[in-house]
C-alpha cells in the first residue's frame, strides 16, 4: 500500500533495524553540514529581506532533510527541474552559496543576470534547470529531458520536484502521464509540506496520499518520511536505479512540514494554528539527524560550531560581496531574448540607452514584492 511511510530514522534519531543506507561516515557528516548550511542560508535570506537589502525571500525551514538526502542520492550528470523551495538541494548539488546570493540580489554577477525574482535560480554547471514561478510547468519538461537521455542511450535520470499544491496542476497530470507512457528515466518528487500558501492538504485533494496518485499513471508511488534524510536518500536511490535500468518513472511523496511562512511576504498566523507548527517542531529534521550522528559518535560540539559558524561566516561574507556587485547594465536587459538581437529590439535598446545617458529617465527602483 502506498500509504505506508518509509523511514530509516526513528523520531529519536535511532536507526530502524538493518535499514541504514550504505553511506560513509564522511558522507553522513556532510549531510548534516549541508542541512545546517541550508538552514543558515534560509535565515540569511529572510534576514536580508527583513533588513530591506533584498526584495523577497522564500525559506525552506523544516524541509532540509529531503533536499539534502535527495541531492546526495543523485549522480553528477543527472538533471534536476527544481521547484522554488529548494536552496538545500542546490547547495547539496555543489552550487556555491555566493552564486545563490548573487541571484537573490539580482546583481550583475547573477547567472540569471538579474532578470528573475529571488530564489528562481539557474545553474548550468550542476544541471540545475532554471526555475520559473508558474506551478507545475517544469514537470513535463523533466520528462522531456529524461526522454532525451533515453533517446541517446544514456544512463542519467531527470528528477523534478513539486509541492502538494503542485499535484493539482496541469503539469503534474501531463508530466506523470507522459513519463509513464514513454517509460522515461524520471523521478517525480513531491515535497508534501501540507500547505500551499494558506490552503491545507485536505483542501488540495481528497486522495488518501500523493503517492497513490501514481496509480492513475501506472507507476510505483512511494511515501517517505521527508524529515528523515536517510529514508529520502534510499527512496531516491531506488527510484534512480529503476529509472537507470529502463523501468521508468517513480512518484515519491516526502511528508514534511513548511515550518515558516510561505515567503517573506506571508503571515501564516492568519490561517494556521501555532499548535500544529509546534507539533512539527518536535520532528525537526536537523535535530533528528544530530541525534543519529551522536549515536554513531560522529557529532561533537566542535563539529557543530564548525557547521554553524562556518555557514554563517561564509554567508555573511558572500552577501556583502553580492551586495557590492551592483545591478546589471541597462543594455543587458535587451540581450538574450533571442540568440541574436533582432534589429527592432536593437533600436529599442539604443533609444533607452540614449535616454538613460541624457538623464531623461525618471523611473525609480522602488516597490517590493508583497507575496
Amino acid at each position, binding site marked *: 500500500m502506498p500509504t505506508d511511510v518509509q523511514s530509516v530514522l526513528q523520531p529519536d534519531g535511532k536507526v530502524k533495524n538493518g535499514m541504514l543506507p550504505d553511506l560513509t561516515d564522511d558522507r553522513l557528516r556532510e549531510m548534516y553540514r549541508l542541512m545546517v548550511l541550508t538552514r543558515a542560508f534560509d535565515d540569511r535570506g529572510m534576514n536580508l529581506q527583513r533588513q530591506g537589502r533584498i*526584495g*523577497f525571500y522564500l525559506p525552506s525551514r523544516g524541509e532540509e532533510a529531503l533536499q539534502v538526502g535527495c541531492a546526495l542520492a543523485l549522480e553528477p550528470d543527472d538533471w534536476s527541474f527544481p521547484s522554488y523551495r529548494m536552496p538545500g538541494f542546490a547547495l547539496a548539488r555543489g552550487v556555491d552559496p555566493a552564486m545563490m546570493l548573487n541571484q537573490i540580489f*539580482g*546583481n550583475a554577477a547573477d547567472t540569471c543576470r*538579474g*532578470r*528573475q*525574482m529571488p530564489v*528562481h535560480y539557474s545553474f548550468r554547471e550542476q544541471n540545475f534547470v532554471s526555475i*520559473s*514561478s*508558474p*506551478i*507545475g510547468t517544469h514537470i513535463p519538461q523533466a520528462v522531456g529531458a529524461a526522454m532525451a537521455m533515453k533517446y541517446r542511450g544514456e544512463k542519467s535520470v531527470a528528477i523534478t520536484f513539486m509541492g502538494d*499544491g*503542485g499535484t*493539482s*496542476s*496541469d503539469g503534474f497530470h501531463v508530466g506523470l502521464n507522459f513519463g509513464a507512457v514513454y517509460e522515461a528515466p524520471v523521478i517525480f518528487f513531491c515535497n508534501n509540506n501540507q500547505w*500551499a*500558501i*494558506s*490552503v491545507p492538504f485536505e*483542501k*488540495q*485533494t481528497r486522495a488518501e496520499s500523493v503517492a497513490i496518485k501514481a496509480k492513475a499513471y501506472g507507476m510505483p508511488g512511494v511515501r517517505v518520511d521527508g524529515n528523515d534524510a536517510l529514508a529520502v536518500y534510499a527512496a531516491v536511490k531506488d527510484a534512480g536505479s529503476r529509472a537507470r535500468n529502463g523501468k521508468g518513472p517513480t512518484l515519491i511523496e516526502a511528508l514534511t512540514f513548511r515550518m515558516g511562512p510561505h515567503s517573506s*511576504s*506571508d503571515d501564516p498566523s*492568519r*490561517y494556521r494554528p501555532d499548535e500544529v507548527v509546534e507539533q512539527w517542531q518536535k520532528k525537526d529534521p536537523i535535530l533528528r539527524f544530530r541525534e543519529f550522528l551522536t549515536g554513531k559518535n560522529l557529532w561533537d560540539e566542535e563539529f557543530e560550531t564548525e557547521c554553524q559558524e562556518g555557514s554563517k561566516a561564509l554567508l555573511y561574507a558572500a552577501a556583502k560581496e553580492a551586495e557590492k556587485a551592483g*545591478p*546589471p547594465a*541597462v543594455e543587458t*536587459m*535587451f540581450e538574450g*531574448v533571442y540568440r541574436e538581437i533582432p534589429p*527592432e*529590439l536593437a533600436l*529599442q*535598446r539604443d533609444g*533607452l540607452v540614449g*535616454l*538613460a545617458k541624457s538623464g*531623461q*529617465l*525618471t*523611473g*525609480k*527602483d*522602488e*516597490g*517590493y*514584492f*508583497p*507575496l
Partner: protein
Amino acid sequence: MATSTILGAVNDALKTALAKDDRVVILGEDVGKTGGVFRATDGLQAEFSERRVFDTPLAEGGIIGTAIGMALYGLRPIPEIQFLDFIYPAFDQVVSEAAKFRYRSGGEYTCPMVIRAPCGGGIKGGHYHSQSSEAYFAHTPGLKIVMPTTPADTKGLLLSAIEDEDPVLFLEPKRIYHKKFKEEVPDGWYTVPLGKAAVRNEGTDVSVISWGAMVHVALEAAKKAREKDISVEVLDLRSISPLDVAAVLETVRNTGRVVIAYEAPRTGGFGAEIAAIIAERAIEVLEAPIARVAGFDTPFPYTLEHVYLPDAGRILNAIDHVVNF
C-alpha cells in the same frame, strides 16, 4: 462615504455584491481564510461563510472551468486569479469557452462571471508577477476587459462587471492598489458604465492615451509638460473592451497629436490597436506620427524593472517628439 484605496474599493465592491445577490460566490487560491495574497477578499469568508467564499486547489483551469459551470447554471461567480501571469493554465477555458459560450450555443448558454486578476508591474515581481497581458484578451471576441485607475471607479466598474451578462476580465493594476491616492468612495451599490473612457486631464496640444497604472505616469508626464507650456490631454480608457472609440477619436480631433502609453511589450500590445484605429479613422487630423511608449519586447525583468516600465521621462520625451514634429 469613506476614503479608500483601490484595494479597499475592490473589497468594498465584493462585500456589497455578496450582500445583495445570493448568486455571487467568490473562489480562488487563498481567497478564504487569509483573504487573498493581496487581501482583496479580506474578511469576506468570515462574514459570508465558506459557502460563498472559498479556497480552491492550485489549478487555474479548474478555477475558471468550475466558475464557467456555475455561471451556466445561474450563479454569478467571481473567480480570482492570484496574478494575471497565472491565467495561462486557464487560457483555454477563457478564450475557447467563456468567450464563446453565448455565441456558439446561439444564446442558449451564457456565462456571466467576473474574473479578477491583479496585473502589471511595479512591485518587483519579475517575469511572472508583473505582466500586462490585456492584449491577448482584447483580441478575443466575447470577453469584456476593464482596468480601473481610481478607487471610486474601481468599485463602480466592478459592480457593473458583476451585473453584466457577459464574462468580464477585471484587471487590477496592483502597483496602485495602495499607492497614489485614496479618495472618497460612495457607500452601497452604484455603477460606473463599462465601455466609457474618462478624460483625466484636459489639454489641447497632445493626447496621451493610456490605461491602468500607466495613466498615473501619464498624468505625471502631463504635469512636467505643463512646465514647458505643453498642454496634454490624458485619456484613461478604463475599458479595453468594449472600447470607447468615440472618446479616442474625440481627443485626437482635439489635439491632432497622440502618444499611447502602456506597460506591456510594445509589439502587438493594445496600444497598436489604438494607433491602428486612429490611423484608419482620424488620419486627416494628425499633425505628427502616433508615438507609442511601452514596455520593451523582452520578458519582464526583475532588477531593471524601473527602467523597463515606461516612466514620466519617457512619456515626456515622446510628447516632445510629437509636438516638435
